[in-house]
Structures are given as structure tokens and as C-alpha cells.
């Protein structure tokens, strides 16, 4: 294994002997899966077993929390539980619909009711939706529809998407950002919402630089990676948009800064904390034939 020389590097510290199936941190609390069982690890304490929860599809698993409410995307199902001991209630199930990595956001509506917003990724080239699930009323609603490629091509319906890749919340503004793919025909597009997905504003489209798989945020800017593949031979960037330039109506393009990358398309954004200062964002690379695989760290300074 070759290591790149630099002020930061990754050191393998655990392999196979104890490798959890999945883990998610909430501040100092670590939640992890081991042998299809949920464990919680608090600082300086031994892990505590919570309950059984077999993993269906670990790529695309996501666990998000609001207060004591947890939502878990596991395979094609979304579960909700008060606490991690369960019982886990299935609130959404569709064998054609999954997430990739970041596809769920907790919100509260004007009545202070808990609402889970989630997007979906399908490979069927059908419609994609953004849903809300109201916990107090046990009510599932469809907030947005992205029409299929065929509906767009034959009927001109907008907006459309081949896939919805990502939905994340900016912790600073509270705005929700959505990334769609894959083509240069308008299916690749980035949207944001100021009102919990009741309306969307398009930031840009029609270029591979608006085809993304994940976002990361600083106080003043939003960044996203590119999902352009080796097959299209598009250059790869991390893009930055200052939040003062967020549009008020749909745009074809916004004033973004592009940071070139030397390797292939980047996958999912993860946040690592190094010490008390700064945020480190990790994005694993695709293993493109001509470009090689690897792990890239984008370090966003505090602004």
C-alpha cells in the first residue's frame, strides 16, 4: 500500500478483527453495527448492546437523529424509533427505492411536529420523489416529483432526473440541498430549498459540474463534488458557491469556483474531526479504470 506524503495521512488501525458493519457518530456518542446488532459507545465506557437490526444493504445506510427520534435507512426500508432500543417502525418501503449515503433530513414544521424528509435513488429510470413523514400524524406525503427521462423527452415535463443522488441540510442556514444526475440534458442539476422542500430553486444544471453525490458546508459557502465518470471523460472538480450568490429563482448556472481534482469521480462526503479546530471532509474516489482509486481529503478551513 502506497501512502501519499503530506501533513495528513490515514493509518489503518483496525482490520477485520473488529470492523463494525456501519457506524454513525452523534457528538461523542458512537452508534455502530456489529453482527447485525446495534451498539452504543459512550466515551470511556464499554459498548452497550441495544437491539438486533439486520443490515439489508450497507451501501446507502444512514442513521439520523432529532432529539430522541432516530430514522434509519436500511436497504429499501426506512425505520423510525424512539431511542435505539426499538421497536423500529417501518414508515417507508419500496423495493425499487434506496438512498446512496445522505438522503434523509429531520425537520420540524410550523406546529413543531417532527418531519422526516427523504429522497430516493432508483435504477429504474422512473420518477423520483421527495417525501415527508410526519411522526405525530403517521402521515406520508409527497413533496416533490422529478419526472422520468422518458416523460421529459416525450412530453417536456420538468423538473426531471435520472437519479436523485443526495439530499443534505446545511447546518448553518437550515436550507436543504438536493443533487440529481446524470446527463447534460438538465437531469444533472442542483437545487436548494428554504422551506423544507415545499419549493425548490435550481442553482444550476446542464453540465457535469452540477452532477454531484454529496455536499459539504461552511458558514459562508456550500461545496459539492462531481460525479462525472471516466466514460464521459469529463474533468473532475470540487465546486464552491458562496451563499450570498444563492439564487432566488431557477438558474442555468451560478457563479461557482472550481477546484480541479487529479483523480476520478468522487463519491460520498464524510466529515472527520481533527482536534478541536477545523473540519476535515473525506470523499472516497471511484476506482476508474484509467485514473486509479484512492481516498481524498478536502480540508475546509474555518471561515
Amino acid at each position, binding site marked *: 500500500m502506497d501512502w501519499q506524503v503530506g501533513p495528513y495521512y490515514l493509518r*489503518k488501525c483496525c482490520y477485520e478483527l473488529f470492523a463494525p458493519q456501519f457506524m454513525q457518530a452523534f457528538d461523542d456518542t458512537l452508534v455502530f453495527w456489529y453482527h447485525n446488532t446495534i451498539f452504543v459507545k459512550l466515551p470511556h465506557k464499554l459498548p452497550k448492546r441495544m437491539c438486533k437490526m439486520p443490515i439489508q444493504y450497507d451501501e446507502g445506510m444512514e442513521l439520523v437523529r432529532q432529539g430522541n427520534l432516530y430514522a434509519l435507512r436500511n436497504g429499501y426500508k426506512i425505520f423510525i424509533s424512539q431511542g435505539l432500543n426499538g421497536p423500529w417502525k417501518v414508515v417507508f418501503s419500496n423495493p425499487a427505492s434506496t438512498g446512496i449515503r445522505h438522503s434523509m433530513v429531520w425537520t420540524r414544521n410550523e406546529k413543531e411536529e417532527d418531519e422526516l424528509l427523504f429522497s430516493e435513488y432508483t435504477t429504474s429510470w422512473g420518477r423520483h420523489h421527495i417525501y415527508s413523514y410526519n411522526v405525530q400524524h403517521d402521515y406520508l406525503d409527497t413533496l416533490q416529483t422529478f419526472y422520468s427521462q422518458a416523460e421529459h423527452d416525450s412530453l417536456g415535463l420538468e423538473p426531471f432526473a435520472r437519479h436523485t443522488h443526495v439530499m443534505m441540510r446545511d447546518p448553518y442556514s437550515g436550507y436543504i440541498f438536493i443533487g440529481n444526475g446524470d446527463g447534460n440534458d438538465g437531469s444533472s442539476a442542483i437545487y436548494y430549498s428554504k422551506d423544507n422542500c415545499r419549493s425548490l430553486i435550481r442553482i444550476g444544471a446542464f453540465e457535469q459540474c452540477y452532477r454531484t453525490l454529496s455536499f459539504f458546508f461552511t458558514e459562508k459557502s456550500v461545496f459539492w463534488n462531481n460525479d462525472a465518470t471516466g466514460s464521459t471523460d469529463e474533468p473532475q472538480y470540487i465546486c464552491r458557491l458562496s451563499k450570498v450568490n444563492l439564487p432566488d429563482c431557477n438558474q442555468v448556472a451560478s457563479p461557482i469556483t472550481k477546484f480541479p481534482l487529479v483523480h476520478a469521480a468522487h463519491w460520498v462526503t464524510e466529515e472527520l474531526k481533527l482536534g478541536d479546530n477545523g473540519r476535515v471532509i473525506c470523499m472516497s474516489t471511484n476506482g476508474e479504470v484509467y485514473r486509479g482509486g484512492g481516498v481524498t481529503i478536502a480540508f475546509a478551513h474555518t471561515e
Partner: protein
Amino acid sequence: MIINSEDNLEIYELLSLPNRGGRFHQYYPLGTYKDKILLMDNETQKRAIYKLIKE
């Protein structure tokens, strides 16, 4: 190795792993905890925890 630096963004390529010529994400992140990241080798399904070190 810094491969780009401007204003408030620095990009480091940290880890080169064997390329098997696959189309999709060979090393999939399955979660983070502080300075640790759990990566899954997409082909072998093996998992390893890596720690981020600052020299």
C-alpha cells in the same frame, strides 16, 4: 500531497489503494467517528477502520 489550495479549501490525496479497474466506488465510507473512518472494500466486502493523522 496538496493537490489544490485556494482560500478556504485544501485538497489532499491521502491514500492510494489498488485499482482493480472497477467502475464504481471501491472504497465506500460506512461512517466516521472523530478522526476515524470506516471504509469498505466494495469488491471483497472487507472493512477497515482508518485513523486520520496529522504530522
